[in-house]
């Protein structure tokens, strides 16, 4: 299916509690800037950025929304069609870490992802520069990821630019792995909403009187 894609557009959503640094991460990645006093996000914003991996170009369309619960109904429609989801917390904010589960569920639910162990999630522990106030250890991060079947995680600092590029590359690589695996199963996941594939109970499914044109 993806024969010689020169440029692939990937939709990336960054989720996480208010104030964990989602917008800062995006701005660091896209324009290599950090503004300590930038505004909190109202509504949705997005930025595009190209990255090259193994000679292929990927245009990441990065979506950044407001983290507050109140705006849930306004942000969830944007989850649909996502290729990559970054679950973000701040290492100095335990409750933002605890909320990862909520964010993951919200995403799966509204993005309509069924086989979640195949979706490229990446967990990001931001603000790694302020280790003195660390409330979430790396071990806790790994444990949570294991429990949730997530294989990619990384600690970053939007402030001192550590691991930010790496985080996005990691995410795309993860996406690529899943995509390749899916390619192998092409026949199963082809665009025909495989009526034949359907299990037992429904005996009378399928195409009736006339056949495909």
């Amino acid at each position: 299916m993806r024969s010689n894609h020169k440029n692939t557009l990937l939709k990336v959503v960054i989720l996480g509690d208010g104030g964990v640094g989602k917008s800062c991460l995006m701005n660091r990645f896209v324009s290599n800037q950090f503004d300590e006093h930038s505004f909190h996000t109202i509504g949705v914003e997005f930025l595009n950025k190209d990255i090259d991996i193994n000679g292929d170009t990927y245009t990441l369309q990065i979506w950044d929304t407001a983290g507050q619960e109140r705006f849930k109904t306004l942000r969830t429609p944007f989850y649909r069609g996502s290729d990559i989801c970054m679950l973000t917390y701040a290492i100095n904010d335990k409750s933002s870490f605890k909320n990862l589960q909520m964010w993951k569920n919200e995403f799966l639910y509204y993005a309509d992802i069924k086989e979640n162990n195949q979706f490229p999630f990446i967990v990001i522990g931001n603000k790694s520069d302020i280790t003195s106030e660390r409330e979430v250890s790396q071990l806790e991060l790994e444990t949570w990821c294991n429990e949730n079947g997530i294989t990619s995680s990384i600690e970053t600092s939007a402030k001192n630019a550590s691991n930010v590029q790496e985080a996005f590359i990691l995410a795309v690589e993860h996406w690529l792995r899943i995509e390749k695996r899916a390619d192998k199963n092409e026949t199963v996941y082809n665009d025909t909403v495989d009526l034949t594939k359907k299990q037992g109970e429904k005996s009378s499914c399928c195409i009736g009187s006339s056949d495909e044109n």
Partner: protein
Amino acid sequence: MGDIEEVFDLFTQDGVILKQAQASYMQFLNSLGTVYINEAKTDPRERFLEWKPNDITVDSDMQDQEWAVVNTIQKRTRTISGSLPSDYSNRLRSLRVPFRDIKSFKSSHKNRELTVYNGQGDTICIFLFQTNCDHMAGHLKKFMKVVPSKRDRNLYYVQDNTLEIQQLTKSFAELNLPTDDSGIWRLVRNFQTQPVETTFEAFSKVTTLMYKTMDKKEISDHDREALNKSITEYGSNNTTDFAGNSNDYEVVATVPELPVRPEFPRLKPLSQELWRDHMDFEGKIEDVESVKNLIFRGGICPSIRKEVWKYLLEYYPWTSTYKERQNLAENLKDEYYKMKLQWKTITKTQEDNFSDYRDRKSLIEKDVNRTDRTVEFFAGDNNKNLNTLFEILMTFVMYNFDLGYVQGMSDLLSPILQLVEDEVESFWCFVGFMKIMSSNFDIDQAGMKEQFKKLQELLAFFSPNLSNYLNEHDSANMFFCFRWLLVWFKRELSQDDVMRFWEVLWTGLPCQNFHLLIAVTILDNEKEALMANGNGFTEILKHINDLSGKLDIDTIFNKAEGVYHQLKNAEHLTDNVRAILGLPLAPSSSNSASSSIAREMSLASDACASNGSAPRCSVENVRISPDENSYERSISGSYL
């Protein structure tokens, strides 16, 4: 209905979300299910389109999600979220549409949505497919006789019901205009109530009919004129776009034009002298409406802004005396500190056991640090004004715990605090502002959704081309205006402009929801850019977000006021738009109830006008007419 009935399934597809249906299916909206084409075993002519939910326990959250799904990127044909075996155990309830009720259907959103129409301008249901609706549409086309619309290749008309089509064909070919409430005339009338939906359907219908008849018989000029006229009379101007773009057909619907837009150059700001002139010896403001008009037309001089804002934000009543204001200020100060003490004295343990409070507090802390830090007033570390900002917001949480703190509030408070400076007075002014804005922060965001809807209606009336464009490009939800509306353009304007902007809006002139007309004005100004290159939601959102810092409020006010007059004086103004702007409903309205309301309204306004300055109508009680009236007076005043 417990319609357990023997059926053959002719076709099924799972992974289909019910996006829209009659109210009785409310509980299923946005839930995932399976669509079927069924045939009754007892009667092979009885066929249905049926949808059944996968799981009867619908998460109530789903109902919040009324937004049209925004697809920013076309789904890849293969998705890992692909098809899954659905749960058939649940056959309790389903949506069932007999084929005979289906008059047309249409695929949209890159074939992910399928809309089924009843032929009267109403939608029966909308399905959203996790993959696409190509199979489904293909089978519908096979099981029903359909013709493609010539206007829209994704729209199909069902021909099974030949009767109606024949009638319509007849009436158009011969222009035997029926007076009853059937067929095309109902469609045409629906232009008024549901312009957008109806336009889609009706015009395709009209054009389909035209193309069917055209090659046989040229329509005479006379008939064409009659057709145009009837459409014009009934139609909303949504029709322009369709007609305007149409090269395929000869019938061109002309649409009533809006009156010429008058110019409203801005006046000088309300000066200290004028302000004092309006105050009597006791300190009461005389002729409040004229003061408001002056503010509306020119804003307030910075030297008295601080004082006047207290009136605009209802900290002081306009007609209070010096003495009364002094007492009031003292009482409100006590009240403020009482509330402040409440959270100030919460102990560590209390706080640990009070997660709602803790969450709010931590959110305020985070946001205060990210509010207008580039403005000198809030710049630098350990700025004491940041602390004041924090304390006012915390006290507001105690003042209205249900509403609490919602992101955006710190933006609304910031300019007030910068200007008023005093903590207590700023708090009460903020309370006044929140009275206007609180619905923006509803738990379920109903207030914001309502505003999007109103904005959509205003835009459809004022700028139908743009409105149609947005409809066709996944952007009808107006979501891209979220930031504008949530904090009244705070993020789009400079600190100075925000103050000038808000004080004008606080006057409540010249009509209700004037901020929506401002949004309409800006959108109209950006029309070309928004509609360029087949822009979709993503590009539109980007363009709107990037307008921040580029808006010139004086020209916008000038035009928005002109837009208001164009709408108000438009002959084809709909009651819908009137209601949004708070204008009296049309006196000629066929609905007797509404016309009597309109009569009452104009009586009330006459009373206010003729009484001059004596017993002033309170703006609170009669929102519409007095404003309207004195506003008119001031306009003629300033131009004579």
